[in-house]
């Protein structure tokens, strides 16, 4: 029977698992990005090459119609989170506490002000309430993860979530390139630059990329500030769900559970802290830390390649100017506010 099937469909016996093809694409682009960053002028760092190659591959795969068939290994979040866990090896636990404490203060101030500002601007632009909630969460906290949490809290449509995800990445990529160079032009210290980047750019992958373009120190500060912000996702999702059922749906019997805060907490932060503690206790030699730091760089390169590969150009064709306008205004406000907060707390 199997032999008959193989003869009837001769291609079957030669089919290579698509996941391996997909992974080979991501790995190949990452290797190329690494090579280009070493041979090109200093100004072009590996995050830029990786994202650019990912975007070009995205367009090519889309044009040839195979993108949906080879996308299984395009996993920005997974590669990024693994890279961030490994980043713990280059951050002393004392630094996490010191930067993290200021990062939490900046995050609480930033998240509250930017969320409320975006809410009222979006209302003025006539944006639907559920889309408004998803946009506010993504601008104020952490792009994609926050948008997902908010979408769940207010039961937003799947199209809203896909659309906001595309907007997040579309705004994050130019900022990833512009903000570090702007920070250098303004003569900001690495700590202030990192805090500004971490408090502003919406997606964690672009935060890490922008920080890396500026300097190693800025990348660490930006990452810790961003992770402090990410930790608030659960709190905001809980409050948003509470507001929704009490004031919008007016159903006080459907209160969200407090457990929601833990459920939404980004667990990979625990891995980041654990690795930092391991290194702070002196359990690894400096050459072992160097090996982990290089592994981190590889995983981050894979993430930056995927950020370009996963950009959904198709979503923009469905866009109206209003959500884009709101996002632009909110991003400008966020950028200025984050600079002020970073200057006061880290300057």
């Amino acid at each position, binding site marked *: 029977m199997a032999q008959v099937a193989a003869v009837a469909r001769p291609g079957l016996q030669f089919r290579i698992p698509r996941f391996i093809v997909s992974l080979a694409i991501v790995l190949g682009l990452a290797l190329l990005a*690494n090579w280009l960053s070493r041979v090109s002028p200093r100004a072009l760092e590996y995050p830029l090459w990786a994202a650019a190659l990912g975007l070009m591959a995205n367009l090519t795969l889309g044009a040839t119609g195979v993108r949906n068939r080879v996308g299984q290994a395009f*996993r920005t*979040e*997974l590669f990024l*989170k*693994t890279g*961030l*866990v*490994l980043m*713990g*090896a280059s951050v002393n636990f004392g630094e996490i506490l010191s930067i993290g404490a200021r990062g939490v203060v900046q995050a609480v101030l930033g998240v509250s002000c930017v969320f409320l500002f975006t809410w009222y601007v979006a209302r003025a632009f006539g944006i639907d309430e559920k889309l408004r909630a998803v946009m506010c969460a993504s601008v104020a906290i952490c792009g994609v*993860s926050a948008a*997902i949490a908010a979408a769940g809290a207010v039961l937003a449509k799947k199209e809203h979530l896909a659309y906001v995800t595309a907007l997040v990445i579309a705004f994050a990529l130019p900022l990833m390139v512009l903000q570090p160079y702007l920070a250098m032009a303004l003569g900001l210290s690495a700590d202030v630059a990192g805090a500004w980047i971490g408090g502003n750019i919406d997606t964690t992958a672009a935060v890490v990329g922008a920080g890396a373009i500026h300097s190693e120190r800025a990348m660490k500060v930006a990452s810790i500030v961003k992770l402090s912000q990410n930790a608030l996702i659960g709190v905001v999702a809980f409050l948003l769900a509470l507001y929704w059922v009490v004031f919008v749906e007016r159903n006080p019997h459907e209160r969200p559970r407090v457990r929601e805060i833990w*459920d939404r907490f*980004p*667990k*990979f932060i*625990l*891995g980041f802290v*654990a*690795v930092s503690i*391991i290194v702070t206790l002196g*359990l*690894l030699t400096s*050459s*072992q830390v160097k*090996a*982990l730091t*290089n*592994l981190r*760089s*590889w995983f981050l390169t894979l993430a930056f390649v995927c950020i370009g590969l996963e950009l959904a150009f198709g979503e923009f064709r469905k866009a109206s100017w209003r959500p884009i306008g709101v996002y632009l205004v909110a991003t400008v406000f966020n950028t200025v506010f984050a600079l002020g907060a970073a200057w006061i707390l880290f300057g």
Partner: protein
Amino acid sequence: MHRLTEDWLAVIVGLALVLLVYSGAISRVPW
């Protein structure tokens, strides 16, 4: 992949790599 599983997978892979480096199974990573 569910985001909760993705987070824990990142932690597991990260800690596994730390263990491999600590044990000497991975001693050098070019960059």
